[in-house]
């Protein structure tokens, strides 16, 4: 029989986790419940974070917005603050599962579950998010670029949970874009998912963060592609270069959803098209 610990405050949650780091943190349960009967059976205790008010909701803060880890994708896609400043995050939220999944699945769950295919994760990389993590020692911050450290592995220490994510506002005139390639528009796990954000200065790409999912063991920044096009004028040659570099630096695999070859091919095309779309 599974016992669920149901804390009512963040203090209470981290105290439980401090005493028993083997507790499995849960929120919307949309990933947890599909791990199969054996896995669920082995998981003898869970801690339900949905009742912790400090972990939920979207707030405007100095210089950006903060999204609580148990905020659902439905809340994110509806949020006027998110849609105004980070439309690519709202867009990614609409691509997670269908309506029913979006009502339950949470941003923090997507991060902590750390699937290489998580739809929102390349967006957080492109937006240079900062993760606020809670543990028995209090809060600490991790740049999201350092959060994923391997296949389904994160920088969270035992007993730590994602408390919230801070998204710094982009400078005026910045561009951002998102694209997911799946089997159908809804309820599909991505074959390739790409997000980018950056800015143009004097007709050249001054800053570009390009990130992709489903092309490596974890969501990744495409740093070779970023580096190759920095300082270049947007246009077909720059877009070609970005696509080529992106395809070269990733390590996709064959699995039930797609092949490594197709993923590399699709990534090159998607990156090229997205970089072409950067307004000059």
């Amino acid at each position, binding site marked *: 029989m599974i016992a669920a610990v149901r804390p009512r405050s963040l203090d209470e949650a981290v105290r439980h986790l401090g005493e028993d780091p083997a507790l499995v943190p849960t929120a919307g349960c949309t990933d947890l419940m599909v791990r199969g009967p054996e896995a*669920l059976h082995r*998981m003898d205790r869970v801690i*339900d974070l949905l009742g912790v008010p400090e972990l939920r909701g979207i707030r405007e803060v100095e210089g950006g917005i903060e999204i609580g880890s148990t905020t659902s994708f439905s809340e994110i896609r509806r949020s006027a603050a998110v849609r105004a400043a980070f439309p690519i995050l709202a867009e990614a939220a609409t691509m997670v*599962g269908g*309506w*029913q*999944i979006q009502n339950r699945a949470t941003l923090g769950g997507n991060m902590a579950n750390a699937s290489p295919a998580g739809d929102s994760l390349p967006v957080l990389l492109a937006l240079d998010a900062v993760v606020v993590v809670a543990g028995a020692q209090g809060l600490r911050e991790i740049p999201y670029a350092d959060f994923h450290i391997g296949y389904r592995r994160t920088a969270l220490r035992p007993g730590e949970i994602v408390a919230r994510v801070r998204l710094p506002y982009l400078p005026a005139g910045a561009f951002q874009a998102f694209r997911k390639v799946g089997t159908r528009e*809804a309820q599909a796990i991505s074959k390739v998912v790409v997000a980018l954000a950056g800015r143009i200065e004097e007709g050249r790409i001054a800053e570009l963060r390009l990130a992709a999912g489903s092309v490596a063991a974890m969501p990744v920044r495409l740093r070779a592609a970023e580096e190759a096009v920095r300082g270049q004028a947007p246009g077909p040659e720059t877009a070609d270069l970005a696509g080529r570099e992106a395809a070269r630096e990733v390590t996709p695999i064959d699995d039930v959803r797609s092949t490594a070859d197709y993923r590399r091919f699709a990534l090159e095309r998607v990156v090229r098209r997205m970089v072409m779309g950067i307004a000059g």
Partner: protein
Amino acid sequence: MERLLDVLREGLGLTGTKEGCGEGECGACTVLIDGEPTLSCLVPLFQCEGRRIETVEGIAAGPARDFLERFVATGGVQCGACTPGIVITAWALLQRNPAPSREEAREALAGNLCRCTGICGEPDR
């Protein structure tokens, strides 16, 4: 971990809620939790304490009666396994948006799959 779906079907005998895939892909087990469409195969029972759960039996006995008649009249059922989930999701959409566009209806129902291919007609009902 006990699933809401099993408690509804086996514990309470409310078999209107169907199990399709059991892994959150098909939408057949959709119920309303506090008015929000939710997949009951993915909800552990411990998260249901104090929540209002509505199944197809509940809405069929209440205000959705006429709406259900339209499903029957337009032949919205073939094998029927997906229908309760589609009814629940469509009903929830109409509570929020009494006159959805075809596109809005398609998006709302995107998480409800129909193996008999009747899905293409659902947004028109």
